């Protein structure tokens, strides 16, 4: 196992990378391989004008084998859906990134009027795979090590024996250790699947794959037939056992990570609820709708940015956060002032009234925005994933965990160090005593409710990155949030934290064995039983009252 390798695999990065390597790679390729021969390249072009996938595939093969220096730009254009054809005039044109047309046959700007029936050369997945393989072998010697690394990975995937000569050459010239390792693995992949490779080479290749140690290596090892030479088979068995051990270990780490991630989502959704429940003893059934309002705020912010300031898209979440807090907080305070304050001391009625509010809010949003899902995009820094050892960490999950941590810490700090926090804690512990020493409990109630709702709003911003933005968004989280609060105990944020993480991790460890549904049922039953044991949750406030 090659230690901790961080491999950027964001999809957008991919596209950007390919755009940038276009020119240098073509030049290098020409330098490396041969003098351009005019024939096969030009002959291939008519195959692109028939709008048939099999003709395109044949033409693609011919182009990539032609050795022409126009091949790489053409393939790249095809991949980016910038390659256009006219069936009538039998012409193939390349559209450059800035909208100019080049004649694919000459690489020169296209003169004259573009044909009327110009349309894109269409791709399907088979063609995309062929393209990736072709471009992979063409970019093995690119200037940027990241591109060479990606090219090596794509050769590893395609295992195309035809790339062997280029691969050898690239390997000989390679200085960068990381790229070199990837090239070695690509070579090993080809050796393993080549039936007539010498046994000694195969054993060496298997060792390389064993060190790679991931699912892909495992997959390759499984392709080795049972009738291979005994020393090869022995190496395979050893390597497989090694990889399996490795994968099992990382599997546990992965489950832990998923649990952490699910737990942080639960925490984010529940933490506002925990505050209002703790301070006011009020169950806010409309809490989920506050989350929904936050998500819709994000949607509106992104819409405005999309239409007015497209450059700011990466900052859309940063802009949405305070807005969502304000919107949801304001709605929360409005609810508290108009409904809940008349219902103090009657928690069950509050529960019913807030349920009514949640129905009204849902239908209001449905009326205002329509019933369908709204598109909320991921900013580039929240897209994609990277490998950390044997697990894949997606950026959006990572950021949500980080974000949850920040919210939790901020809230904890606020409760601990501010006047409002002090008063809130006082009211939580003993409402009448707090009132007696001069705390305006009504004001604290309103502010607490606003704060809880505001936090739900910013939870909505985060959840919009991983879930549907629809009027039903809040409903999906409300029961889980209750479970977290009840399980963790009231009036103690640490209880909520531990509760959320425990439930998240328990869920994720149960899921592989029991399936998603049974896992969830098991967790629910566990909570029901747990509450019998500790009716006030894990971290209950200690008090002397017989009835809290």
């Amino acid at each position, binding site marked *: 196992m090659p230690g901790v390798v961080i491999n950027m695999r964001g999809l957008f990065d991919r596209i950007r990378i390919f755009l940038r390597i276009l020119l240098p790679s073509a030049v290098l390729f020409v330098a490396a391989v041969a003098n351009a021969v005019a024939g096969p390249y030009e002959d291939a072009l008519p195959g692109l004008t028939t709008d048939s996938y099999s003709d395109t595939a044949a033409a693609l093969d011919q182009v990539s084998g032609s050795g022409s220096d126009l091949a790489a730009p053409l393939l790249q254009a095809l991949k980016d859906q910038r390659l256009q054809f006219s069936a009538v005039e039998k012409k193939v044109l390349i559209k450059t990134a800035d909208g100019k047309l080049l004649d694919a046959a000459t690489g020169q700007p296209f003169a004259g009027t573009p044909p009327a029936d110009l349309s894109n050369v269409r791709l399907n997945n*088979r063609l995309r795979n062929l393209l990736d393989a072709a471009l992979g072998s063409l970019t093995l010697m690119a200037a940027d090590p990241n591109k060479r690394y990606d090219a090596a990975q794509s050769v590893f995937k395609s295992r195309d024996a035809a790339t062997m000569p280029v691969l050898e050459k690239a390997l000989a010239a390679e200085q960068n250790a990381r790229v070199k390792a990837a090239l070695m693995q690509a070579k090993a992949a080809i050796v393993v699947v080549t039936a007539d490779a010498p046994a000694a080479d195969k054993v060496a290749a298997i060792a390389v794959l064993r060190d790679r140690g991931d*699912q892909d290596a495992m997959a390759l090892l499984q392709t080795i037939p049972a009738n291979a030479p005994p020393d090869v088979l022995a190496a395979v068995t050893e390597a497989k056992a090694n990889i399996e051990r490795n994968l099992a270990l990382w599997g546990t780490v992965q489950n832990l990570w*998923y649990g952490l*991630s699910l737990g942080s989502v639960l925490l984010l959704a529940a933490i506002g609820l925990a505050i209002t429940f703790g301070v006011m003893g009020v169950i806010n059934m409309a809490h989920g709708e506050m989350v929904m309002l936050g998500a819709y705020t994000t949607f509106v912010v992104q819409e405005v940015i999309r239409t007015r300031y497209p450059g700011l898209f990466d900052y859309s979440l940063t802009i949405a956060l305070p807005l969502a807090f304000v919107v949801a907080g304001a709605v929360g305070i409005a609810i508290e002032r108009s409904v809940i304050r008349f219902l103090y001391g009657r928690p069950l009625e509050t529960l019913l009234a807030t349920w009514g509010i949640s129905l009204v809010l849902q239908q209001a949003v449905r009326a205002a925005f329509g019933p369908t*899902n709204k598109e909320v995009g*991921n900013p580039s820094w929240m897209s994609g*994933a990277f490998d950390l050892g044997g697990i894949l960490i997606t*950026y959006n999950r990572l950021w949500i965990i980080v974000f949850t941590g920040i919210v939790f810490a901020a809230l904890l700090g606020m409760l601990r160090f501010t006047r409002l926090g002090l008063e809130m804690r006082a009211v939580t512990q003993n409402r009448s005593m707090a009132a007696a020493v001069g705390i305006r409990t009504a004001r604290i109630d309103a502010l607490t409710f606003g704060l809880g709702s505001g936090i739900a709003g910013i939870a909505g911003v985060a959840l919009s990155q*991983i879930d549907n933005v629809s009027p039903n968004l809040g409903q999906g989280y409300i029961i889980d949030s209750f479970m977290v609060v009840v399980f963790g105990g009231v009036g103690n944020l640490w209880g909520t934290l531990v509760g959320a993480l425990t439930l998240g991790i328990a869920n994720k460890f149960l899921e592989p064995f029991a399936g998603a549904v049974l896992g969830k049922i098991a967790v629910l039953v566990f909570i029901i039983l747990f509450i019998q044991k500790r009716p006030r949750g894990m971290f209950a406030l200690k008090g002397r009252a017989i009835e809290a």
Partner: protein
Amino acid sequence: MNKSVHSAASRPTARKWLAAAAGVAMAAAGAFSPAKAQDTIKVGVLHSLSGTMAISETTLKDTILFLIDEQNKKGGVLGKKLEAVVVDPASNWPLFAEKARELIAKDKVSVVFGCWTSVSRKSVLPVFKELNSILFYPVQYEGEESERNVFYTGAAPNQQAIPAVDYLMSKDGGEVKRWVLAGTDYVYPRTTNKILEAYLKAKGVKEEDILVNYTPFGHADWQTIVADIKKFGSAGKKTAVVSTINGDANVPFYKELGNQGIKATDIPVVAFSVGEEELAGLDTKPLVGHLAAWNYFQSIKDAKNAEFIKAWQTYTKNPKRVTNDPMEAHVIGFHMWVKAVEKAGTIDPDKVIDVLPGTEAPNLTGGISKMLPNHHITKPVFIGEIKADGQFDVVWQTKDLVPGAAWSSYLPGSKDLVADWVTLKCGNYNTVTKKCGGSGS
């Protein structure tokens, strides 16, 4: 305590009670009184406008209103205007049955267009049978049903699932050898996957090359399952996912796919419940190349389709409003019904039901769909790849229209059954015992 409430009720109380009760009763009777004599033909629309299914069904309600509007511009049917009666079953299945009864018995509609989920259809079935009315059901479903009073304009499994799998096994589809059947845990995915499993095994796919996975409705946390798919897909054979994941759960599923970097070139996902409407809620750039199998795509280039899209966007006053497959099913069904009523010269349900099989109506993709004796219709099948703009690029299509089969020949329970309401007058005729199964009339 109880004393206080009840012993307080003295004689005058009782009288007022009676008055109040009578008032309620009268209000009820007034509201339930039958509608006055009709000079229009009433068309029932039974789609949820609130609750979880509103997301999909609201559009279908609008579609029927649009079609009625268009028809009325042409002079209506049988010289009468059409009048829509819209009810909201609120995504509540028993309420579907109540509302169906209300439409047929109280509002006296002559036909109902409605339902989305299988359970809502199952819920209203007894009502349609009892009161002998007509339901047009526009959504792809699990098959295994053919009722005299229902006309199924959506796809049966052989019009969607099996062609999609055939495509993936073809050279263009990537010669897939290993299959993940992922679905939401309800009857449509269960049945479809049962059929697909039997079909794949018949095609020589081994047991260990099929992974079946079910998730609850609205499943939001896909990390584990997507990782499992990735793991299953890296066993050295080309792998594809056949997704029967239902509406709401799709967005987080695709988001997770995109983020974990599963590209269509590695593991293509072919979905049966993801259309233009569902994609409207997603950033589709990371999903380019994933597939969907439908009988209609908005992007299909056809004069009829272009005309329909334009009229629809004008009607809804939204130039971005998308169209989708169940909408097309309603379009076909509606036109079939209009033709059948005009041919029968009456709205009498028995006559219309008899006339409907054999009725033809143009679909929006250049063909002519036909109502079959088993109450399903002929449809073309398209495989589309998701494009970056949220539309689909058709990469494969059947040469001819595929007739819908009510009973799957791949399930042991139904392989001997046929449905024929024209000659056999039976929805589940057993070709072995030569008997009508029992639920038919």
